């Protein structure tokens, strides 16, 4: 590791550590269980976690800017509810999609504006957003609403065959497109670099003449959009809308982003880290299901331990790196 650490810039180390962790976890599975090391198991990682990948991408923006978005799980639930109720009422599929994405983005915009204009901690504002969105679900229906629309069901069940007989769903394609788009925006656009700058030092970013307010509000719009899109993917995955869907999913998203090496303090991290973070979480889940006798709550325990270890590692690394800045 030390020889490697010298050649790789230190900013890539956390992501690299996550990749190594993923490879290790997968390697353990492959050695211990027959059939683990198959293409389909990897494909299933993506299929089962497509919505989480999208959520993590949006969350990466927010965390990079130094904020946090606790509302994403509830917005996913609200989106499934709107989708299911809309389709039940006979709305055409494109209209439903547009409505859902609009609702999510608008919620994000409102939260971003409140955070920015009134200078309130994102934690509180998005906590309020979380309760609001969760409550709105039950305004639509307190029961689970199943989705019977044939177009929607067709898309949900459609499979795409990859070479080697591995199949994936459209969800996976959409999730990967989102990751690509996020990569582009964060690394290749002025908006994206401003997000990094704001997370690094907001006052400096302002004095550099960057449009910090646009970045600060924008990240919540992006996160809101990603949450509603994740909600659509979740609807496709579950084929139902329910106010109790995706309870606590915001925490999974945050965990994935942090395990992926993004600093909670903002300014340091990568979208791909979040993707690998999701894959790590998924692999642990798969490992435990292959094991068979362990309860699925072991996933949570492992994730908890991982999260602690990663934050401790990040902390030590940052100490060494930013000393010169003091």
């Amino acid at each position: 590791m030390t020889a490697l650490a010298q050649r790789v810039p230190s900013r890539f180390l956390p992501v690299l550590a996550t990749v190594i962790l993923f490879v290790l976890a997968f390697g353990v599975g492959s050695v211990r269980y027959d059939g683990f090391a198959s293409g389909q198991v990897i494909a299933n990682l993506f299929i089962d976690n497509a919505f989480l990948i999208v959520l993590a991408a949006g969350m990466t923006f927010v965390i990079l800017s130094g904020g946090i978005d606790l509302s994403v799980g509830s917005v996913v639930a609200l989106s499934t509810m709107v989708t299911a109720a809309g389709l039940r009422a006979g709305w055409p599929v494109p209209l439903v999609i547009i409505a859902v994405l609009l609702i999510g983005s608008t919620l994000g915009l409102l939260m971003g504006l409140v955070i920015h204009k009134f200078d309130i901690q994102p934690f509180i504002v998005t906590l309020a957003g979380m309760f609001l969105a969760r409550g709105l679900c039950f305004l639509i229906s307190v029961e689970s609403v199943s989705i019977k629309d044939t177009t929607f069901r067709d898309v949900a069940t459609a499979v795409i065959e990859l070479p080697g007989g591995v199949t994936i769903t459209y969800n996976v394609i959409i999730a990967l497109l989102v990751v690509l788009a996020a990569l582009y925006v964060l690394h290749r656009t002025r908006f994206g670099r401003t997000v990094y700058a704001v997370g690094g030092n907001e006052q400096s970013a302002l004095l550099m003449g960057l449009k910090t307010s646009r970045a600060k509000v924008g990240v919540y719009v992006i996160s809101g959009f990603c949450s509603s899109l994740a909600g659509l993917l979740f609807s496709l995955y579950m084929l139902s809308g329910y106010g109790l869907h995706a309870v606590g999913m915001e925490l999974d998203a945050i965990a994935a982003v942090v395990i992926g090496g993004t600093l909670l303090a903002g300014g340091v991290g990568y979208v791909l880290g979040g993707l690998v973070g999701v894959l790590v979480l998924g692999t642990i889940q798969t490992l435990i299901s292959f094991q068979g006798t362990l309860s699925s709550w072991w996933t949570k325990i492992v994730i908890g331990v991982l999260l602690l270890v990663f934050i401790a590692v990040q902390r030590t690394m940052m100490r060494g790196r930013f000393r010169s800045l003091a």
Partner: protein
Amino acid sequence: MTESLSPVVEMRGISLAFPGVKALQDVDFRLFPGEVHALMGENGAGKSTLIKTLTGVHRPDSGQVVLAGTDVAFSSPGQAQEAGISTVYQEVNLCANLTVAENILLGREPRKLGGIDFPAMRKRAAEVLSRIGVHIDPASSLGEHPIAVQQLVAIARAITIDCRVLVLDEPTSSLDAGEVAELFRIMRVLRDEGVAILFVSHFLDQVYEISDRMTVLRNGTLVGEHLSADVDRRALIAQMIGRDLGALEAIEEAAEKHQADGPVLVQAEGLGRRGAIEPFDLDIRAGEVVGLAGLLGSGRTELARLLFGADKADSGRLLVDGKPLHLRGPRSAIAAGIAFSSEDRKGEGLVADLSIRDNLVLAMQAARGWTRPLSRRVKDELVEKYVAALDIRPANPDALVRTLSGGNQQKVLLARWLVTEPRLLILDEPTRGIDIGAKAQIQHLVTTLAAEGTAILFISAELEEVVRIADRIVVLRDRHKIAELDGSASLDEVVELIAGGAAPEKVAS
């Protein structure tokens, strides 16, 4: 140069008040193209506020800003930049987590197909950097470089804008002599290209070397505008401090030395920390001023942090009053009567959003413990005493620390430590970025405290100051204590020791 008859910037009747402070009152200011204009004044005179009014950080309560003949009212630094006013602030205002190239060009980066064109960006950044003679990898993170280099990157950022007005707010306080000369060369080039440069520095030598014209402020009001050639130092200082050169005499007075023969208060035996400072021996007597001399990075601050327990020593031991003291952290040092006034006054020590009174009371109460509350009367008396003793301005205990100038913040920080009545006071760069008047006051205070029996460890990058004030000088080089001189040592001796025959250390990489 044909335009030089009409000013590029004209500020008329600018007034601005913060809670409890009238920062600027009816100030006029003009800036001509192709000149270096020095803005002079003590701390709290309103220099930074005037600059921030020009650059769109503050909006004036009244008055107008005219840029090249048109009225402007910037509501953000971004707008001012677009209008051609770029600024380099005293503290590096860049993002350490981004690359050097991004820090230079972000906001006006070259684009390709709607996205940032990184190869072109790095190339342009490298061009700008080489124009000012800095050779670092534009793709490296800014945070990897020392502060002096970061400062030069900030200047590189400022000159990539097609700027008509360049504001340099104390750009030289973290640069060494070679880097200052380089900066001046760049400033002259820009000036000859017709850029108007507004320059703030507390180093009079530098001001006289580079400036064509100067404007003097005092207490938020305009005192005068002169050609630099027309006004000599003494007259300038008299204008800045507004009294009959009393401050200069105070400096002379401060030079009065005394032989400290008090008991040894703090004794370090082979104290050291790997990578910070090699093991050293050091005695500090009560009533003695010990000066630490050395270049940036020679281990000055590191030594002080060990004495204060801010870092843990990995060798040697520390004795206080002849008894070994195990420092578990700053708290145990404070309990033993050791105080450390850090060079980072913003980050450590002051609560910017509280008033002067609250900041002092916090320290007093912390020193007494919460079980023995101070009466309102005692608090008021103490606050009044320190505000007066240190000449903190404004002398209004309810003014927010945030709104004070750097020098006055430094005084509040000092007062915070003084109320705890320390036996050893460690002062790390207490006079950095501070004007002559305040400097003299702080130096005077140091000698007074010593005369009263406080031991003082005085750290300063300005060797002259160390030589003048210290009863004993400890010289550091490359993280080693290399010599100990008595107070009669001359500046030349110290410089020679620091240079040590070896190649002089450069601050920049």
